[in-house]
């Protein structure tokens, strides 16, 4: 199955062998492709008002699945995602608001989070500052000088990174506390909201968005190592955004992509969530293991049963290792 790319997505003129028909009322003219995964397409567009940016998640019909079954599955999954998001917002958690949707047609419109994924930000950190693999401290060789104020500056920068991890631990803890497991807790499903302090009225518009291809962790790491610079981001508003790594770490942690979320209070489910997160962090950079431990320390203090979940995480980790040893 060939998915349309942004230049051939026009349903009428495309030469692609299989092209999705966008659900009513959407047309390609006002959508910008963000990602195209196996499950569906993610676009950036506007919703309700011309200056309300939004994310449109569309799960097109799967031609290889029985139509009735396909419709039912799509509907159930989108509904589950929307319900969990609304539950989270009710509880004051930082997740995108649900702005609209149509389960029959397979789409969901979500509030646009202005910011970057934790994965993107960590990659910038790895790239710009350089980090010693063992302890996550800034690398002396890339930093250069060993002056007192340079040291102090590094310490401060480091502290911001640790603070970000604490926020991650707290966010995941709150999620589990209200009885939700994310189901796909990777670093690309965690965003850091960009605090818009200078221009509160400037609204990002659709034109400014550069579409971006998907990049795997390894290609991003490779790019970072080769000094090719950070990947392209859907820059919402170039003028109000900073590329300074420090600034990227400011702002609330927003959890996104609840497509696999479940409403559960089982320690096993919670521990698996943490395990997935741990794997995602350690895949970014070996130093991230220490950072992850800081997130877990804070997680452990977030709600009553959290310490028990951390114990369970040790079991899950062990099982995970055994599985990879056998497999």
């Amino acid at each position, binding site marked *: 199955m060939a998915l349309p790319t942004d230049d051939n997505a026009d349903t009428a003129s495309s030469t692609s062998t299989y092209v999705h028909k966008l659900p*009513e*009322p*959407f*047309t390609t003219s*006002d959508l910008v492709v963000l990602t195209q995964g196996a499950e569906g397409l993610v676009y950036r*567009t*506007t*919703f*309700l*008002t*011309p*200056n*309300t940016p939004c994310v449109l998640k569309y799960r097109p019909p799967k031609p290889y699945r029985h139509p009735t079954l396909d419709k039912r599955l799509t509907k159930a999954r989108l*509904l589950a995602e*929307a*319900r969990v*998001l*609304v539950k989270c*917002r*009710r*509880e*004051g*958690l*930082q997740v995108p*608001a*649900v*702005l*609209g*949707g*149509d*389960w*029959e*047609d397979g789409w969901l419109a979500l*509030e646009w989070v202005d910011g970057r994924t934790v994965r993107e930000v960590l990659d910038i950190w790895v790239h710009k500052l350089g980090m010693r693999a063992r302890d996550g401290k800034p690398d002396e060789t890339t930093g250069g000088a060993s002056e007192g104020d340079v040291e102090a500056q590094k310490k401060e920068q480091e502290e911001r990174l640790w603070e970000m991890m604490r926020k991650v631990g707290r966010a995941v803890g*709150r999620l589990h506390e*209200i009885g939700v497991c994310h189901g796909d807790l990777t670093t690309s499903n965690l965003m850091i909201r960009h605090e818009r302090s200078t221009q509160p009225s400037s609204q990002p518009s659709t034109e400014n968005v550069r579409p971006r291809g998907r990049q795997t962790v390894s290609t991003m790491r490779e790019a970072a190592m080769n000094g090719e610079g950070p990947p392209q981001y859907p820059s919402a508003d170039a003028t109000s955004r900073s590329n300074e790594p420090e600034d990227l770490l400011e702002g*609330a942690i927003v959890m996104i992509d609840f497509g696999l979320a479940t409403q559960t209070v089982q320690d096993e489910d919670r521990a698996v969530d943490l395990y997935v997160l741990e794997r995602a962090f350690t895949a970014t950079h070996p130093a991230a293991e220490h950072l992850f431990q800081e997130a877990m320390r804070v997680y452990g203090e977030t709600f009553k049963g959290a310490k028990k979940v951390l114990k369970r995480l040790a079991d899950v980790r062990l099982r995970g290792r055994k599985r990879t040893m056998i497999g």
Partner: protein
Amino acid sequence: MATVRTIVLPHYPSYPIHVCMFKDVSNAAFLRSQLLEANPDFDYAFLDAAMILSPQHLLSAAFLALHCTQVARAKTRTAHSELVFRLHPNNNIGESYRKFGISDKTSALIAVKLALKPETTAQVVAEHLGEHVKGESADPGEALEHVGMWCDVGKVRKMYKLEGVGEPKKGKRGAIVNGNASDMDERKEMESVITGIITLKGS
């Protein structure tokens, strides 16, 4: 002539939405009777302004009303009744009209006209409502930013069961998301849950 503001929803450019606001309305009973008689000249959504929190609140219901009409999945007779129906969290049409529609005593009114036909212009709406609504016309604002000015936030909170949402102190722990929660933050937080509830309604 009443002040009318016209909004074009993204993705539905052919169906503009005209909005008027009135205060000190003295003939709500007459307007309501026209709805009950299904007088085609009074095909509007007449809303109790106390129940509308913000532009996003109103427009999420308007979008879905329009959308359901367009894809032939509406649950009620007209696009306007669908709008009133869509605002209520539950599936009872009568209850939707009782809570969000006008009563004989309503004095602050929001009138919405979904322009399904091109001849339904802002001018036509302004003249018609100006002639038939006995009350003082108010400006909803270019982006409908004043549409929530007569809102009874407590009533809306109760309607959607939003105890604690966006409230700075006595709320649940999660409510302290932004530190100093002003009235705007409170409404924003409520609105972000409400658009979700409206979207999920009936499913």
